């Protein structure tokens, strides 16, 4: 059965860089009209408030974020995530807003011949089929992990999203809690992301990002995390750990965060936090391995951030 007539396929779509849209146009997954987003000083580039807080325009290229020295100083988890995603060509063109609003990379969603929840279908074929690269936190009817690495990093920074209609949206407000399987985000039809606002960095905070993949580069993460923390007096304070690639939305690993709060910044604390990274996980038959990868990632990154 072809899904070419599903409403979601024929709806108008925004085009920022078009790195994903071009492929969906060709495969027949996007058949509606296109609204090209035009760059303006407000949607492109990074501006700084007097308190040291950054605002990033939605049409700022990922590569521009990845290579911004001041951003790297203030929000190292965000620049590291930008450096780690996709390929150099994609990073060169793709935008922050486009990264947040991109469509699922699920191999069932991408096949224009197969119906699924995100294409007006009645069930998730990955759940009963092949979900090797899907979620290990089964939070809703669709089992595709959210593809946005930037959303995962921004969640660690409590970033707020401003659209042309609303402001002050958290990443959770933007993407939901994973219980809605029919969409990749909660933007209304025609609503467009304009900029991202970051809170001013804390004194002495540091952050690291890492993804687990099978090759060296250019692969969607099997699991990825961003860890942000202040270490004072040799103790972890204000730890934020977020994970991507494992759930329908980026997750805060709150149990790991709580376990580190006020604990010595050392390998033993990291190992303890790592064991708690999978709290609340509900893996699918084929995704149990992601829990081991997530544990390994938390242990790796927290250990490195502690030194």
């Amino acid at each position, binding site marked *: 059965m072809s899904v070419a007539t599903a409403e979601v396929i024929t709806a108008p779509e925004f085009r920022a860089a078009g790195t994903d849209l071009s492929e969906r146009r060709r495969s027949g997954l996007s058949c509606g009209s296109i609204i090209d987003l035009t760059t303006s000083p407000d949607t492109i580039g990074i501006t700084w408030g007097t308190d040291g807080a950054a605002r990033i325009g939605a049409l700022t290229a990922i590569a521009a974020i990845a290579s911004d020295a001041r951003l790297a100083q203030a929000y190292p988890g965000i620049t590291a995530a930008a450096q780690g995603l996709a390929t150099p060509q994609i990073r060169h063109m793709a935008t922050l807003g486009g990264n947040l609003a991109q469509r699922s990379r699920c191999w069932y969603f*991408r096949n224009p011949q197969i119906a699924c929840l995100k294409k007006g279908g009645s069930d998730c074929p990955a759940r009963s089929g092949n979900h090797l690269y899907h979620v290990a936190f089964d939070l809703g009817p669709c089992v595709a992990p959210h593809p946005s690495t930037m959303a995962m990093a921004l969640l660690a920074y409590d970033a707020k999203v401003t659209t042309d209609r609303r402001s002050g949206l958290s990443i959770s407000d933007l993407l939901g809690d994973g219980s809605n399987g029919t969409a990749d985000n909660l933007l209304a039809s025609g609503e467009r992301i304009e900029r991202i606002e970051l809170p001013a960095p804390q004194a002495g905070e540091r952050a690291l990002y890492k993804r687990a993949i099978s090759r060296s580069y250019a692969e969607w993460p099997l699991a990825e995390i961003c860890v942000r923390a202040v270490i004072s007096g040799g103790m972890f304070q204000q730890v934020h750990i977020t994970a991507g690639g494992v759930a329908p939305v980026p997750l805060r690993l709150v149990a790991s965060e709580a376990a580190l709060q006020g604990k010595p910044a050392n390998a033993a604390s990291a190992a303890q936090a790592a064991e708690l990274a999978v709290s609340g996980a509900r893996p699918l038959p084929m995704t149990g391995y992601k829990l081991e990868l997530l544990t390994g990632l938390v242990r790796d990154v927290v250990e490195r951030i502690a030194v």
Partner: protein
Amino acid sequence: MPAQAAAGKAVTTVEGIGAAQLHPVQKAFMAHDALQCGFCTPGFIVEATAFCDQWRATKGTAVPSREEIGAALSGHLCRCGAYDGIFRAVADACAGRFDGDNVAAPRIEARDKVTGAAKYTVDINHDGQLEGLILRSRDAHARITVLDLAPARALPGVAAVSLLGDDRIVRYVGEPIAAVAARDRKSALAALAAIKVSSEKLPAVVGLDAGRKDGAPVVFDKASRKRAGNVSEAAGGPAPWKQNIRGPTAVFSTRAKKARSWVDEARQASNKLLVEATFRTATQQHACLEPHAAVARFDGDRLTLHASTQQVFHLKEQIAKRYKIDHDKVRVIADHVGGGFGSKASLGTETIAAIELAREAKAPVRVAYDRQEELSVAGYRPAAELKVALLASDQGGLKALSVTAHADTGAATNSTIAGLARLIYPAEAKDLSDFDVISNLPPGAAFRGPGGPPMAFAVEQSIDEAALRLKVDPIALRKRWDPDPNRQRLYDWASGLDIWRNRKPQQNGRYRRGIGVATGYWLYLWQPNVKVEVAVKGGRIVASTATQDIGTGTRSVLADTIAREFDLEPSDIDVRIGDSSLPEGPGSGGSRVTASVMPPTLQAVRKLKAAILEQATRKPAPGSNAPWRELIARSPDIAVTEARGEDGKNTAPGIRSPLREVGLMGMVFGWMMRRFSNIAVGAGVPSSVQVIEVEVDTWLGHVRVLNVHTGIAVGKIASPALARSQACGAVIQGLGYALYEARELDPNSGDVLTAGMEDYRIPGIADTPEINVHFDEAGFDHVLGNSVGIGEASTVPTSAAVANAIYDAIGVRLTEIPIRPDRIVAALKGRTAA
């Protein structure tokens, strides 16, 4: 990016980069042979040029590290595996070593490939050419009850043809039903949508396990069995065929009953010298970067077909026969072919559709697969399950070897995996059975050393395990059990490597390193009736034969060989290939091109030399340092055509036809290969022994290959730089097979899910380790020119060497490939991966 986004901007393509003068990156790619088929080369050149220019602007002539180059080029993929040369080329270009006018290239068509001048089939664009698309089955098994092309034909400028067989049954998702041609892709898509199709679904069965179940729906009934595809390089023999299981094919067994009873006894006695395991290998897609493509054009009753094919000459004959056209009215052209690896060695749907559409439309038609078609219905190396039982004797000999292989061949048959274990490691008894498991999946095809890599993955790990149990060095055990003289020399080389001699005991930390060894071989095949013309035309040497270059370097092999004979430069030789109107040349399969063209070339050169001298009116100046150059420049046009003759009988000690050792069945097999597939099996066995070091991240399941040592015995190396490229590419493809590559399916519908390069994961440049290539050039003195093919032998052992290295690192044997992070972390926990 939409084209309009570039409005008002300057765009530089690969053609622009080299337009005025070659960029240092282009010269470096040429000099380091950083390319093979060349299809991905423009992308690499553009990206590497941008990287190099930026690097030079900020860092002068500092040399970038492998890590920096790997990261910068990580968005490009090369299926031939030219990464080793690309690393060296980019480093040298950045370092300023190619700023001068020095342009030298071991590959004679390299300049065309680094400047975008090389034309592939997909680039062909005749006046009035139409674009063809194929309507494919959505069902894994169905009978097409209605196929009405009229609504499509009613659209302006649309041609449409049926591709259904007379039984009107489709047996896999993606099986061709019909094809349309229209002025552009968009119109063709509309025409496809206009076709009326109704079908009656039939029960379907998907995959190796389901296909073997009792009562599974039968894919081919007796009457339709001839429709099944072929996963080997040659035609197959008869075999039992019940429901979806074809086999056993067990002609290469010897004392099979004895082998079985010895294994049973050893099992009952819990004999520690019995190694038993079940191995699983994944379906590997060829993933050619130039998709399957054909452009057909009729001029009156003459057909010109541009095709991305591994066999211009044979394809012409197949077309002439199928369409009852005179042989001299069909011409097949393939100037450059963007990869094949076995998948482009038949008369494929793209060709059939292009020809039939062009005939109906009375206009040229191009059919080029898209990436989804290329990664689903264009062939693959079948997945397999291999059960191995290997019994060592108390005296440390090899007593019995049993291998039973079930191959996941889809709508195809003729897998030989277990049988290949006959031609290595002689044992007192061998029980070798091959089965095809047919199901409602696209047909598999021959893929670089068909059956070799899965056989090696299972048998070479079993040999490793036996070495552990016998407490013998794994190379020493191979040297003891494998008397082949070519490999004996390679074992001596391997055991002398520092990396092997300095192996460390197993480690415990997060990152653990290990070293593994494995052996592989392929048959030495050559093609009878091959002819090569070597001529003087207009004062230059011209060599012609209807073969093709799929990235292996055929042009250079011919040019280098002839240049050596005349003491000229390879650039002095014009090589004409890729055109079926030339003298009959070999197909690029079975590693047979070099061994098929070099002997007749050398014979023709000898005769041509005599003719030139005989007709020379003036001898070269005394003391001339280029007497042949002078003679050729002054010679009248002379052409000599020679055919590939039989090899000499003067084989080195221990070198003989491997089939002789198999006795009567081997002779019958050899006769059938020659009679039905036009392939001769020669004496001596092309071989490779590889030693590989890996590092396993036990937390994240990541395997990093640190270095590879590949020893290769394929006789004298005709074109050393290109042979090195082939050897490295073979290793890189083998690493993909070992670590990353797997076709994934929906188990219910039979849809291929890994239908794009994001989901079907081939190795990238940063996954490429240091590769040390050792050529042992002896062993083929009985072949005129002393050279045989390198393509297949060099890729067979890689996956097994990686698996043995991983065992050495972590003490757990990974019996299933690809060895992905999910499998590593599961194995470390003693769990079976999903």
